[in-house]
């Protein structure tokens, strides 16, 4: 078990598509700062969040295919740029970033549906 006071913990990286979908939902609520202030046990910020998202996409890269991966990775980069341009959620950049979250969520949802139909078939 890690030490409770150890703040230098590994950032959270989703291990599957479901968790990436959940992470996008979490980002919808807590972007642009990505810090809900849950507790000092969690260190949350925009850098750690995007690191986790991008690494998570790499984890599912084979499952979703190169084309979808490239699209999602590009959207993640664009989203980060929007949030960086509007850290106080005032000039509309953040709104654009959130719309991208919805678009990414739709793509991930499609992948999950395809996977479910493959499993059922």
């Amino acid at each position: 078990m890690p030490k409770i006071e150890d703040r230098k913990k590994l950032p959270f990286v989703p291990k599957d598509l479901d968790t990436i979908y959940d992470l996008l939902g979490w980002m919808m609520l807590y972007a642009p700062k990505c810090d809900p202030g849950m507790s000092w046990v969690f260190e949350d910020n925009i850098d750690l969040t995007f690191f986790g998202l991008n690494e998570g996409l790499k984890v599912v890269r084979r499952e979703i295919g190169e084309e979808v991966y490239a699209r999602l990775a590009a959207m993640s980069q664009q989203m980060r740029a929007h949030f960086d341009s509007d850290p106080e959620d005032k000039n509309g950049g953040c709104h654009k970033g959130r719309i991208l979250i919805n678009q990414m969520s739709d793509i991930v949802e499609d992948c999950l549906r395809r996977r479910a139909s493959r499993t059922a078939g």
Partner: protein
Amino acid sequence: MTNGLIPIARKSLHAHAFEHYLRTGRRIDLQPRRAAIARKFNPYHDPDNGQFTFAPGGRRSGTSRRSSQRGSDAPKPGVSANPAKLLLAQYRPNPRARIGGNRGPALNDPMTLERAFPGLRNAPGSSIIALADNALDITGPSRRLTTELADAEVKSLIVQIKRVDAQFHYDRLGAPATLEGQINEINDLRMYRAAARYNKLKDQGPLQVEVLRQMQKSVDRAYAEGVKRFDAGLLKINLSRDEAIGNFIDRTVKLEMQRLFDRFGIEHGTGRQVRVGGREYDTSGTGRTYRIPDVRVGKMAYDMTTERKLPSKPQIRGFFRADFGADSAVIVRPSQLGRGSTYAIKKPGK
């Protein structure tokens, strides 16, 4: 002398002093030079009206100050007693605050869900049991948490954790300055205690309570943000507003619970006693079916939702029929929805 409208009666100094005495019980010194002359001074007075009263600590004084202020400890003439220490004559300390020994009251610290949901153990099947008032709230209705109390609780938690995990080491930089910081520190240590007991002793009770506490916190926060995002037109609606907000709460809280378990080294996933959003199969019938509780710890299923779910709902019945043998299902709803929003449902027929 007039002020232009009503003539004001001229009063002698003595009349003015007497009137002042009647109003306040204090005499005005008409000859300031006399102040230099030593005289008897009575420091005991009612802080409310300044009138003479009995020495504090006496049977009739009604104050909590001891008579140690008599004699040499009594305030010197001209030096005002600290008003913050003076108590009203009718003041009586809160009797509940005396419970719990010299360090003050014990904080709410349920170690099992049966204590958080009073009556859950003996309730008839399919009963709905409300969460006890302030069961998850550290400060209680009077917000009586003080730094001293928080410190005592932190020390007690560290001792309890060390009993289970001798390697436990906690470097504290000092007591948090804010009430919120103190609450967070206590909650984090309680979570650590629950994790240690689960990992070392396989005791699921405290973990079930802490999971509920963390979920409630996550749900409340996600609901508050979800409503804002919905109003901004950012949440996709399939059926209704509640469903749209509920879906985002679901995603958010599931993610936070996964992170929580990762952070505290609690193994979760398929085949474990702790699961987040996993399929729980029911193989008792002819065909294999499944339900997906948002979180499961042992035989306790947790479901977060904005709607009120009843025991008759197929989803809830499905939890109880699943192979993991749910004892109860805890329905976690945003506190913003009002009192009794979070409740437990007892397994039918138990």
